[in-house]
């Protein structure tokens, strides 16, 4: 919990969810609806898509597909995180909570801080960290909701810019190994190209192609050594 409160993500989440609150107010959702969506969805990009697509009257099926595609990253993130948490005594149900709480903020900080920590404390650490983040998000969602009327559009845009900026820098900071740096670089290049070519499922392909390329180069280097 203390790690949560002293991390840069608290500021970023506060700002992002002020923006999210303003967005929810704009599109006529209730503040409790937003709070519940932060707890249940717990992924800022998916929440922006959910709010703006439902708010603009996109058919629910289309909105659900857009949310689903934006959330693909959660799958490999959970696969990479859970083995760090598991010890011989861990039951699957102990992992349900950290699974649900997995989001970029918690994932980035956990991957950075967990390896130095005794295994039996890791799950509690992750849960505390994420609950601290989630509390921040819910609180500032309300703040943004009730401030929305006074929020100039430029400021609202600047708040939404916090998510990509903080994701970019914190992922770069974490990318110490070559495989992570390559994956980051390939993702940044391949992602926009696939969107531009309108191939569909662009994030899925970005991950599979970019990640596998990085992994392949990593294996080649290991083999050469």
């Amino acid at each position, binding site marked *: 919990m203390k790690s949560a409160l002293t991390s840069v993500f608290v500021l970023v989440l506060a700002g992002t969810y002020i923006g999210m609150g303003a967005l929810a107010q704009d599109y006529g959702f209730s503040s409790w609806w937003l709070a519940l969506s932060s707890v249940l969805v717990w992924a800022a990009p998916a929440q922006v898509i959910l709010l703006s697509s439902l708010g603009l009257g996109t058919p629910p099926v289309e909105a659900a597909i857009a949310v689903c595609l934006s959330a693909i990253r959660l799958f490999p993130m959970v*696969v990479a995180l859970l083995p760090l948490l598991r010890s011989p005594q861990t039951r699957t149900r102990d992992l349900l909570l950290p699974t649900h709480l997995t989001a970029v903020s918690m994932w980035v900080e956990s991957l950075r801080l967990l390896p130095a920590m005794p295994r039996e404390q890791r799950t509690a650490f992750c849960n505390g960290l994420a609950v601290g983040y989630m509390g921040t998000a819910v609180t500032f969602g309300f703040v943004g909701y009730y401030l929305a009327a006074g929020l100039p559009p430029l400021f609202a845009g600047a708040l939404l810019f916090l998510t990509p900026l903080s994701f970019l820098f914190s992922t770069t900071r974490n990318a110490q190994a070559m495989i992570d740096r390559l994956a980051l670089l390939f993702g940044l290049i391949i992602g926009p190209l696939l969107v531009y070519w309108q191939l569909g499922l662009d994030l899925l392909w970005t991950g599979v192609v970019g990640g596998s390329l990085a992994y392949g180069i990593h294996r080649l280097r290991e083999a050469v050594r």
Partner: protein
Amino acid sequence: MSAATTELWPYLLLILVGFLPNEIWRVLGLVLARGLSEDSEIVVWSRAVATAILAGVIAKLILFSVGALAAIPLALRVSAAACGFLAFLARRSVFAGVLAGEGVLLLGSFLFAH
């Protein structure tokens, strides 16, 4: 529609359109991660894939913005992100990078508007 369904409809949408399509990936991750050790090759690969997807999400949020951010010109969003990145590298601090990026974005929009 009765009053109760009208009131519950947004919450039903939240579950069906927001929660379930999002959560399914986490649950799939939980299922696949069973029995994998942290240095198994699938986990190493998954981490690379997650990082690449995350990079794709970042690039998409900056280049193909939605909502209030879309009103800010593309060139400005890209320059702000680039300046933020330089500040991040110079100070090795996520906070410095975010601050610089936001500063350039706000200053630039202000100058464009006047």
